[in-house]
């Protein structure tokens, strides 16, 4: 599929070593428009809404920050560990800079993690909300739709 110059530029910015050392694409060789399209289809197949999911994830991240770096149990279903570093990361779409805040959201029904987890960041949530871009397969911050469904119990 033909990509607009903005997407081509964004895809260049997503390569390892441009904004983050390991990039946003993992070992995915598809173009970002194809990744976005496939994930959008996957989302609607699973009956999930981007804005709703972003809303929940963002709430978990902000609640998690209250733990000041230590894991926090939220709603008895999730254990969220946030890590913050000083400074900001630029969005590959060049539409803003985002705090370096990561949250590891572990699905933990009854307080014990069951092994499924999501890793989100301020930037990854922005990419998800604004561009429906969930990052390439194999990227550290890939937000996989199936995993979202499992972890968030949607």
């Amino acid at each position, binding site marked *: 599929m033909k990509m607009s110059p903005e997407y081509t530029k964004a895809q260049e910015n997503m390569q*390892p*070593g*441009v*904004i*983050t*050392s*390991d*990039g946003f694409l*993992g*070992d995915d060789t598809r173009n970002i428009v194809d990744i976005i399209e496939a994930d959008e289809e996957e989302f609607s197949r699973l009956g999930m809404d981007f804005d709703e999911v972003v809303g929940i994830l963002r709430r978990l991240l902000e609640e998690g*920050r*209250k*733990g*000041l*770096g*230590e*894991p*926090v*149990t939220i709603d008895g279903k999730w254990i969220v*560990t*946030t*890590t*913050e*570093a*000083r*400074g*900001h*990361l*630029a969005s590959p779409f060049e539409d803003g*800079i985002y705090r370096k805040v*990561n949250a*590891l959201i572990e699905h933990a029904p009854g*307080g014990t993690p069951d092994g499924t987890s999501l*890793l989100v*960041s301020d930037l990854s949530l922005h990419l998800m909300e604004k561009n429906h871009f969930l990052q390439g397969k*194999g990227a*550290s*911050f890939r937000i996989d739709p199936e995993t979202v469904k499992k972890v968030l119990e949607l």
Partner: protein
Amino acid sequence: MTFDMLFFVAPAAIGGISAGLAALISITDKIVNNYGDITIDINNGKKELVVKGGQPMLFGLAGEGIFVPSACGGRGSCGACKVKVKSDVGPVMPTEVPYLTKEELADDIRLSCQIKLKQDVDIEIPEELFNVQEFQATIERIRDVTHDIKEVYCKLPEGMEITFTSGQYGQFEVPPYDKVKEKTMRAYSMSSPPSDKNHLEFLIRLVPGGIVTSYVHQYLQEGQKVRLVGPFGDFFVRDTDAQMICVAGGSGMAPFKSIFQDMLDRGTFDDRDIWYFFGARTKKDVYYLDWLYKLDEEHERFHFVPALSEPQPEDNWDGPTGLITEVLDSYLKNTISQETPKEGYLCGSPGMLDACIKVMGDNDMETEKIYFDKFA
């Protein structure tokens, strides 16, 4: 002209013209991109370096043994490599602006990785950067202190020693691995005391998605060589009689381990009251307990207060519970002497620092007497 001739002449003409132009470009490149040698004047003539022009200032300085701190390795994404540039090097680049405050812009602070050395420059950097050294250290021991924190003990090369003040930090470089195609550096506080001149120890907590921490936890082997640069930072114990209110969480233990051990070595540990608040979620996230409890028992003026935010039933925890800020608040209000002046020493995430500074401020501690590292 015959048809055959044309077949030859046309490509030859284009080829010849292209070659001529290519030669012209490379000549221009040689002339334009040759900046010759450039003199960097540091701190009004305290040091003068002659480096090759054309490269970023950060690398020019590093080549001469002046290591301006940088967490991203010159990509312009960490904003750490700030220097004051006194001579004119052109306007601030759009790539620098997000990392500079208004005050810094007014004070001619620039990111040294974004400034190309084109002419002689005058810069100002903190004097302690002159002491910064580079080591090819060997990993002597890696130990798990909790399920996600490793204690990494590095031996400096034979014949090399490091002089630092406890509380300072060093930079730890890991090689390219997996999808990471470049060497990556991160700053960690030294947890070894300055008296151990041939070693540096760091406490490294696994950060999900973190490049250096993931490497340390998954790949780093004993016996391996790593590049270390240090010491950096102005986080150290002020020489006063004030009570020290120390707060840490997770790997924020590191500078305090170094500081307490250093004070023991110097015999100044009993000279003042020290409160050490350590926050964790469950008992498996607390470490060095035996050592700290022992210090608490043996030294009357040292008080160790570990607090768990979510103690598990099997922890049998009877100590303080809640967020470290809540415990700190209650101690500042009820337990710690109100009469003696206090100094705050903090190590942790930006969120924890902000929360602690607020609690300390609310309890009438002076903001300028609260110390913490800005790199975290």
